[in-house]
């Protein structure tokens, strides 16, 4: 035995060194390359197990998610048991980032009374001090298909000036980003408008999956903290499936667009509007646009109907902008549309879903029209 050990050790000692390159790097065998790759990926998976679990959990329902969860779950348990999740938590804490957690709690305010009851708007106003705007009747020159008509509550429009500025926040899924920047451009030189932060567009999020990103919590925190007067929302692009997380106890769903699904989705859309309204913010909600994919467009129309109905329940507090109609050409998908000078410009991105710069400008013009109905943002310019 001792002889065997000795000869094995000697054989190891006599093993020729690995070949090297001219600048001193040792080359390796393919087997070693494979072993290092596999071991590194396994270790990295254990070190990142919490985040892997969260991203798998956030995938759409289906077999792929189930299979991935079957691996990610035990991986997370092993990582936690061996405390291998700690190094990443330290790094994240050092840079001030939250460690991966899954939060599906949806806290919404009670819905407002039905339209036309004459009750005053909920909420007591924002940093500007005057609270919800009082819309004027719809003026001419606007295509009737582009907005939900909102009944006037008071004849006077709220006035903002450079001394008392309207605080504007823009938030939503990826579809809000381009029109959001276009709105900021359109109002950028108006000193009566104060943008609150960047366009808060979070890709691949929505109202059906608070586990991916909890918009209900985020909006509640932001509208209170930032004292917002107007918020531009766009949600729903990722909500056109039959599943939702964060359902109340005893609630189940019956498929996308079906009565139970619609009821729950209305609750969420309306709840988000109320959250903003009750903090004193007027809501401009961008409906989803027509897309190149006909079946997707049909699903998005279902989402739009819910949003439009909820907007109509909140006259004077929510305006609905019909992106679908504004970006259609006689009801059909149009990648190019005439701009304000009549020049044909590309309005849709190559994916057939998102907007190009010029498409955002079309939407922004409509948003400004909506704001003009409820606010006076321009008369201060005439005073001197």
């Amino acid at each position, binding site marked *: 035995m001792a002889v065997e050990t000795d000869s094995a050790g000697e054989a190891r000692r006599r093993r020729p060194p690995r070949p090297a390159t001219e*600048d001193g790097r040792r080359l390796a065998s*393919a087997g070693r390359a494979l072993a290092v790759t596999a071991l590194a990926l396994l270790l990295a998976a254990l070190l990142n197990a919490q*985040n892997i679990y969260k991203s798998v959990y956030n995938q759409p329902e289906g077999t792929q998610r189930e299979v991935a969860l079957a691996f990610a779950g035990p991986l997370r348990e092993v990582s936690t048991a061996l405390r291998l999740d700690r190094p990443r938590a330290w790094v994240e804490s050092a840079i001030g980032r939250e460690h991966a957690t899954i939060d599906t709690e949806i806290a919404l305010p009670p819905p407002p009374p039905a339209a036309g009851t004459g009750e005053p708007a909920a909420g007591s106003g924002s940093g500007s001090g005057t609270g919800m705007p009082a819309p004027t009747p719809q003026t001419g020159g606007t295509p009737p298909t582009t907005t939900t008509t909102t009944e006037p509550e008071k004849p006077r429009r709220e006035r903002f000036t450079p001394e008392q500025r309207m605080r504007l926040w823009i938030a939503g899924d990826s579809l809000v980003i381009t029109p959001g920047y276009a709105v900021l451009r359109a109002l950028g030189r108006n000193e009566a408008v104060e943008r609150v932060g960047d366009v808060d567009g979070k890709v691949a999020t929505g109202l059906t999956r608070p586990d991916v990103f909890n918009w209900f919590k985020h909006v509640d925190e932001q509208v209170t903290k930032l004292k917002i007067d107007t918020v531009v929302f766009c949600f729903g692009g990722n909500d056109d499936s039959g599943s939702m997380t964060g359902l109340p106890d005893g609630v189940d769903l019956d498929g996308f667009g079906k009565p139970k699904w619609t009821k729950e989705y209305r609750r969420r859309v309306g709840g988000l509007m109320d959250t903003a309204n009750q903090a004193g913010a007027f809501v401009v909600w961008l409906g989803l646009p027509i897309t190149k994919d006909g079946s997707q467009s049909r699903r998005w129309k279902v989402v739009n109907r819910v949003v439009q109905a909820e907007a109509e329940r909140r006259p004077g507090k929510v305006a609905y902008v019909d992106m679908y109609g504004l970006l259609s050409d006689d009801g059909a998908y149009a990648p190019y549309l005439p701009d304000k000078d009549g020049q044909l410009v590309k309005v849709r991105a190559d994916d057939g879903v998102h907007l190009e710069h010029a498409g955002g400008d079309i939407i922004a013009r409509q948003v400004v029209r909506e704001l003009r109905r409820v606010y006076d943002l321009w008369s201060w310019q005439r005073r001197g």
Partner: protein
Amino acid sequence: MLFPTATFAIFFMIVLPLSWLLMPAVHRWRPFIIGASFVFYGWWDWRFILLLAGSILWNQLMAVRIHRSAGMPSRRKALLWLAVAGNLGVLGYFKYYDFFVSSTQNLATLVGLDVPLEVRTVVLPVGISFYTFMGISYIVDVYRGDTEPTTLEKFAVYLSFFPHLVAGPIVRPNELIPQLDTPRSPRRVDTSRAFYLIAAGLFKKVVISSYLASNIVDEVFADPSSHSSLEILIAVYAYAVQIYADFSGYTDIAIGIALLLGFSFPQNFDSPYAATSLQDFWRRWHMTLSRWLRDYLYIPLGGSRRGRALTYRNLLLTMLLGGLWHGAGWTFVAWGLIHGVGLCVERFRRERFGTKPEESFTRWDFYWRRLVTFHVVCFAWIFFRSDTFELAWQMITGLFTRWGEPSPLVTFPVLLAIAVGIGSQYLPARVPRAILAGFSRLNLVGQAAVLALTLMVTQALGPQDVAPFIYFQF
């Protein structure tokens, strides 16, 4: 399939062992790697596979026919034109059709005409610009006699090999096809360089590029009129670093993956922001595209052999078309024009005042030349990144008109990311060499641990979602 994703990690962990198992019987390896590459490409959209297969068949057919037409120069030339037109026709349809139609209609409207053409919203297949250029390389090299047509199987591997398929490097036939003749040695894999390139590429893409994009670049370029001069200036520098980190990061990963499979690709970036002239910049930036443009466009146009005026014309034309290659938009053409004019000015200066060899540069020469070159490149990036000329103009005027305004986007992490992105290009070559040599001497577990920690830190510092690589759209 994107490189920095779990899907690709699983794909690669299946392909890597099978590739080495099949490698001794290279005739079995080749169909395997073609299949793997088609899976990789079809992951985006299975219909793209048909286009790739069509490109392979077309180029191989034409290369063989050109080769068989030896001694019939006019027929060879006609076949060459037909082959190149076929490649450019497909590229033109998928990439430039809508751009052409909308530009034509707008021009026609200006003179009161109505052009009955409709835009079609053609989906651009990822990587089409890259493999189209590789197909043209093969055809032209066969025509010139620089290479002979290879077998259909080897050509299919050459064109579709997944590490380079969607965003380069643009590998020449004589660089890859000879490597497909014999099995790669399983005992001499340059793993330390491969792992270094993959880790560095991931860090550049996931951390540096994504951070700068989401924390300053996207916001400022979307709405320059709302930002201060300082924010605009820093956003331009940040974009210069972002596009470098994004694209060089991708090709680093591609080269590293190819190395793990036993293949070597040409270098694609060599510290471009340390360039001392625009000519030097193009020797260091997207090097495989630069030499492609030189060998297959600039030289066939006549290069510098037909007099001064034609040389300037050829330079301008090459850079204009290089700009258009990057995207179907007039802002890309403007980007190419700036580089073309810059190269002409440099050439004129050299011809008029002579050339000072780099060996005789003083430290001051290096400073000012690098500074001027970097800023000309940054100026051109404004057009490259801006969606419209109007926004590009707002960026340029904003650089001078809003100094002193608040600049909340100019933060320490943004400045640090820019400093790391530019500073890394001035790192002496001995530093990465020493790191690589040290890494290569670690045992197996040590190497795996270093890599795993690097991956963990990269993931922790990066955003939750990694945006597609910028160069995929080209």
